[in-house]
């Protein structure tokens, strides 16, 4: 049987460092959408039991070591870094999207300025703290943005991974030119 090799969605486009800002590809492992089927309490309990994770409120994320859960929309959260426990299938719509999203870490002084040129939402520390997350658009691309330890975790559909890098590069160059 043919042995298939996983390809990096960013090929050789990353890492990227311009001025004080850098973009690095992130392999998050398993990504699973958990769709709320109407019994939020049951989903919260199952997630706590199985993965030691609190079910995030809207615009928030939770973590337990390398396992994370980020809010992804009005009735969806994303489980990151672990295969979903079988018990979750009883209380949620469970969909494996591991190859559906491409992730990067955006960090460095000026990361906020780069996002300000691409995303129509304020992500400065004063209003968007560590653990906060949101859904918006990076230019025309759907994006999930979460503030973490070193900056921002950005997720976009894998099909637009290269376009996101192109947009980030252009914004990073513009920010760097004004310093």
């Amino acid at each position: 049987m043919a042995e298939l090799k996983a390809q990096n969605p960013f090929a050789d486009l990353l890492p990227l460092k311009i001025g004080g800002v850098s973009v690095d590809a992130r392999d998050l492992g398993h990504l699973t959408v958990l769709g709320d089927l109407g019994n939020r309490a049951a989903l919260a309990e199952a997630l706590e039991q199985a993965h030691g994770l609190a079910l995030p409120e809207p615009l928030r994320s939770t973590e337990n070591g390398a396992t994370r859960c980020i809010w992804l929309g009005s009735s969806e959260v994303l489980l990151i870094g672990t295969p979903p426990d079988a018990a979750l299938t009883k209380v949620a719509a469970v969909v494996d999207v591991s190859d559906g999203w491409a992730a990067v870490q955006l960090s460095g002084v000026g990361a906020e300025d780069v996002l300000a040129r691409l995303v129509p939402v304020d992500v400065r520390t004063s209003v968007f703290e560590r653990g906060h997350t949101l859904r918006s658009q990076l230019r025309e691309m759907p994006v999930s943005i979460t503030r973490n330890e070193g900056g921002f975790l950005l997720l976009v559909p894998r099909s637009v991974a290269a376009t996101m890098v192109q947009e980030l590069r252009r914004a990073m160059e513009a920010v760097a030119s004004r310093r």
Partner: protein
Amino acid sequence: MRIECPICGSRDRREFYYQGAAVALDRPAPDAGDAVWDVYLHLRDNPAGETRDLWQHEGGCGAWLVVTRDTVTHAISAVELASDVKRAMA
């Protein structure tokens, strides 16, 4: 123009998709008759004043919203989750 999403907060208009009059929440019964269905499908008020639309926060949380706005002043007076509005109608 900005819309106050009940879930995400104040967001730029470009994140939202406009669907049309909020009449779609009040779909007639299948056997309501041709006249009722004709009104539902084709006849819309064109008010100079308050109107209610369905919008989707497509570039954000994905929720469907009922937006009450004034076509004269462009002021938005209310934004509600369509699921809440529908539940209240039951």
